[in-house]
């Protein structure tokens, strides 16, 4: 049975690695629902957040194959309820519609969204939340004609207390040192 999973991977910030990772999904014909890559808390280490809808066993295999990449430090996967996650959405509406009634303003308040920029021609609204929430706001605003709409990939953080990368790196150093000792 397919369900939604959030895959997180920490890697070295190397050129081409994004390609190496997406190939693993392509090969198995798994669609990526959303993808976010950016620098993590540690300089030089990137974090990938990838959302897929797939069978658990296939996700397990994919995550192992991601972690197998030489430049990947660690990869995990979680169900949605194991993580706190958000997406950001930007909406461009005609300023005229905003002027003509206070409805747009009320929708913005109801959705805990905020106005980023107002010009003569357009107004840009920002909303952070889950996909259903940003979608709901889109539908609310679209009655007035949304000129442009964009939603980001997901960012996510675990509910478990510890996910300290620096500690992980210290453990990794110890692991690598232990292997060296054994092979010598």
């Amino acid at each position, binding site marked *: 049975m397919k369900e939604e999973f959030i895959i997180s991977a920490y*890697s*070295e910030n190397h*050129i*081409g690695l994004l*390609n*190496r990772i997406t*190939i693993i999904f392509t*090969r198995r014909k798994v669609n990526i629902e959303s993808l976010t890559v950016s620098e993590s808390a540690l300089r030089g280490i990137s974090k990938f957040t990838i959302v897929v809808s797939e069978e658990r*066993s296939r996700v*397990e*295999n994919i995550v*192992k*194959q991601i*972690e*197998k990449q*030489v*430049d*990947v*430090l660690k990869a995990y996967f979680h169900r949605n309820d194991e993580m706190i996650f958000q997406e950001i959405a930007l909406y461009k509406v005609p300023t005229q519609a905003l002027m003509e009634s206070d409805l747009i303003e009320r929708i913005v308040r109801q959705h805990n969204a905020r106005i980023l920029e107002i010009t003569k021609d357009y107004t840009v609204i920002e909303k952070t939340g889950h996909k259903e929430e940003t979608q709901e706001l889109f539908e609310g605003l679209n009655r007035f004609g949304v000129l442009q709409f964009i939603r980001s990939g997901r960012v996510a953080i675990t509910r478990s207390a510890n996910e300290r990368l620096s500690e992980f*790196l210290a453990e*990794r*150093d110890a*692991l*690598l040192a*232990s*292997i*060296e000792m*054994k092979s010598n």
Partner: protein
Amino acid sequence: MTAPSKEFMEMKQEAIQMTGAEAVIRSLLEEGVETIFGYPGGAIMPVYDALYDFKEQVRHILTRHEQGVVHAAQGYARVTGKVGVCFATSGPGATNLITGIADAMIDSTPLVCITGQVASPLLGTDAFQESDVVGISMPVTKWNYQITTPEEIPTAIAQAFYIAHSGRPGPVLLDLTKDAQFGKFDFSYKCCEKIRSYVPEFPLDKENLKNAAGLIDGAKKPFLLFGQGVILSGAERELQEFIEKAGIPAAGTLLGLSALDSDHKLHTGMLGMHGNYGPNIKTNECDVLIAVGMRFDDRVTGDVKRYARQAKVIHLEIDPSEIDKIIKADVAVLGDAKKSLRMLTRLVKKQEHKEWVNEFHQAAGIEMEKVIQRDLFPAKAGLTMGEVVRMASELTNNHSVVVADVGQNQMAAARYSKFTQTRSHISSGGLGTMGFGLPAAIGAKIGAPDREVVAFVGDGGLQMTIQELGTIAQEHLPVKVVVLNNHFLGMVRQWQQLFFEHRYSFTEMVNPDFVKIAEGFGIPGKQVTTRQELQVAMKEMIGHPGPYLLDVLVEKEDNIFPMVPSGASVSDILLSAEE
């Protein structure tokens, strides 16, 4: 001679100014490289120019095609355990390597391929002979990297070698722009010892080894499958000691062959689609299945839903991504096979499973009667592939390195060769690359010059890389090439016969005179059609000091049996077409 002085050592450590191209060669020498397989071209000419000054230190083999480069390097790596090194130019040179790189990836063969690339300002502009080889090779390399400055060369090469040979080995590609080859810099070299994002192997998994030992001690019908992981970790002796102590019958995968002496009393044969009868049916009768350094390829498992369901599965494996990929393990032991097996031998009780082992002997008896007799002592006049292979094996006292191409010839070579030492069987397993055999035999002979190297190739596969006879001639390599010639793409024809109602769609071949072709390259040869001729010619071939091509006209429409039909269970293995 006195030890070098401290000053001298410091001087040696000191950086020396040189071009990137020279740094490539010096880095390879630092890694102990003695042989390079390559083919020059525009974008890698600076490296070739640098190589000209190192002709005494390193041997370069010029093949006739880049596919030959990479398969030869694979043969070399497989027979020696060292990293195979390839040079090719940009564009078509690099893309011609890809098949062999993919082959090395799926068969865990350590390679470092260095490709030339257009100068960095031209990258992405569709310059002459530019191809995005980093992008193209990404899915089929363990790691790859594009070098655009000379300063990166030593580190990139050091990492490439470390990654290629450590852990589960695999191919690495370095793409080297022309300006990085020309540029000058201060060279110094340090071998790579670790990479923080890469765990080549996990430490000994003691807890799971204990669990595994518990299962093995309690088993009535344990069965062990060994793959190439045993050879790659040098665990041949550990494997033998383990099965002898625990009294466990064992069978090899195609790539695991030669890890255990063929005549060892617990060696029950080969697994897989055309493997032996006993190992296949017993997989579905054992109670504990111990898989060592193998990955449950679909050619081994048949239908996974009907594979060893009754058994507890123990999987000893170095690559975490192989655990539970195909067959779920009850006990998974991550780590190097040699270390794990050594520990496991200590943990298990000494046992014998005489009756169980005897069941394998009985199965072998059935196969002997229904298949092997017919292959080795045919009643018909026509020659079988099996008898040709067995004759070559016997005439070389089962000591030769057997290189096989792909198809019926490959299965006959695997089934009827006997192996008395490790790293003696070289074939394209995972990718099944026709054309692999001849160039791989070149690499094998260079890697094992003191051993007899016999290549079995079909008439189809031979014609895919036949130009490499030129390499054999130029390098005076005493490779023995046996063509198992049935004027068909035999394995495809076999499937057409069995599963496509004898519709032989484009599998029959009109072949050239291979002996004349070999003669053209200055390689002696003979064509044989009868048993009497075969015996004489085979002896002549083995006794001949140089290369030799023996074109054996075998039965046109013979089949390889036993056979697990595609998608069937290993229990449903067929012993003949009539079944």
